[in-house]
């Protein structure tokens, strides 16, 4: 660590953590956890730990648009002081208006300063959809429309993180009849790398994984066709669900309090949207790995998919849904086209591109 005596804002992460009593083994352990989370080969953990040790804190500028603050809440309340929380040492959250002490003109000044100081290098995090109807008047900050702010601050960002289903696809504000003309970030911005991290709210570990990957390897992780990190969205809830064997055996709960429900059978017939929903809830779970909705006895509502709110009842089986996309997928699932445990194995083995060592 060549810059042990560097100014705190210039020192690398290894030096900063060492100053706070975290040795390299802690960093390696963190890297082991993160490579597992990102479905990278475990042998890459020492490389990731070395890269993190040499990296500087990553500037993140976070703008909240038409949202409920649930995304921010889930990320902040994601953990007790666990190893996952090391992520907060790796980023410099230079602007987040709900968390910062300043307000009004002082906050606007802070934003300008943060953008100027990190021009071309900062990650722009967005939560909330962007209303565009009537000139975007339905959501303003300091008198400025969300769409105007997004266009300006995306310009000098290195990449954009669309956090939550609203920022990714418009989410609940976009639900019929969409009175504010809400859209997702990628409907406005082109020509910039964008990562969608959908979910209502999103799984916090996914954001940690994306940030750590970016800090470690200087680029975004592999994405699917909807710009979602492949490592977390490459498979469906259904394919990783612990109730999947019951589905394969044709054992379904018919109501929430019948014998099948008590036996923990598959919730497909009660409207579970697991077969058509791509997310990592079944593997990462929630509340520090405690459980996820299906484990608590309720079907998946598909909150990380586009337009999930307009796809009919949460309690209508996919096989009987009137929504075209889900009906087709539901019929496919019902006739067993998905591949069971083999699919889950295959999904985990869709190893994202192994990043080059940037050191």
């Amino acid at each position, binding site marked *: 660590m060549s810059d042990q005596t560097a100014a705190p804002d210039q020192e690398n992460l290894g030096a900063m953590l060492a100053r706070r009593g975290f*040795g390299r*083994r802690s960093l390696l352990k*963190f890297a082991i956890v993160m490579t597992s989370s990102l479905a990278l080969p475990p042998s890459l*953990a020492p490389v990731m730990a070395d890269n993190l040790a040499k990296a500087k804190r990553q500037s993140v500028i976070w703008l909240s648009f038409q949202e409920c603050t649930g995304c921010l809440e889930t990320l902040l309340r994601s953990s007790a002081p666990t190893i996952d929380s090391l992520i907060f040492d790796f980023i410099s959250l230079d602007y987040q208006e709900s968390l910062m002490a300043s307000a009004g003109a002082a906050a606007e000044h802070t934003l300008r300063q943060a953008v100027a100081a990190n021009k071309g290098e900062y990650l722009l995090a967005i939560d909330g959809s962007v209303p565009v109807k009537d000139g975007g008047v339905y959501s303003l900050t300091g008198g400025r429309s969300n769409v105007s702010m997004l266009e300006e601050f995306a310009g000098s960002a290195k990449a954009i993180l669309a956090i939550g289903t609203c920022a990714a696809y418009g989410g609940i504000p976009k639900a019929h009849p969409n009175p504010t003309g809400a859209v997702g970030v990628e409907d406005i911005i082109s020509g910039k790398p964008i990562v969608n991290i959908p979910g209502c709210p999103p799984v916090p570990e996914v954001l940690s994984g994306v940030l750590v990957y970016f800090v470690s390897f200087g680029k975004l992780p592999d994405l699917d066709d909807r710009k979602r990190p492949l490592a977390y969205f490459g498979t469906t809830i259904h394919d*990783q669900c612990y109730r999947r*064997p019951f589905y394969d055996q044709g054992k379904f709960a018919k109501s929430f309090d019948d014998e099948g429900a008590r036996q923990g059978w598959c919730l497909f017939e009660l409207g579970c949207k697991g077969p058509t929903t791509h997310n990592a809830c079944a593997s990462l779970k929630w509340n520090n790995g405690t*459980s996820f909705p299906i484990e608590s006895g309720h079907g998946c509502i598909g909150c990380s998919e586009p337009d999930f709110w307009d796809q009919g009842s949460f309690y209508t089986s996919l096989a009987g849904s009137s929504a075209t996309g889900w009906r087709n997928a539901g019929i496919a699932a019902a006739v067993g086209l998905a591949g069971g445990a083999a699919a889950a194995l295959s999904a985990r083995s869709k190893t994202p591109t192994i990043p080059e060592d940037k050191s």
Partner: protein
Amino acid sequence: MRDFNFLADDTLVDALLAEIAGLMENLAARNISGSIDLLGLPLSAACLALLEQRLGTGEITATLTAAGSSEIRETSFSGVWWSSHADETGRIVAMLIDVALVPEILKANTDDVRLSHRRLLDATGSFPHRRSA
């Protein structure tokens, strides 16, 4: 909460043992280490228990206290380690089979050694009695 673990699958365990054998061959012949991320695979607790039983327990068990507790235990097969990492709350956050002479996380890091060296010199006043001798 019901325990939804299903029966251990011998086939999966056999497949993992074959993969471990391949990694051992690599280590013995070319000194190349390897790892298998057990939490990244859809293994039930019963499957994990069966794998653990088939691998057995070897001569060394190390406890690491860094950002939570970790246990790194050599199995009955030399160079095959069962590494289990918990966070500060005790939750298992990573579980690996490491096939290595010594797992990377047990080795001291040169940067840490450098810092510790400086700390030791500071604590002892840089051994003034030696300098005067």
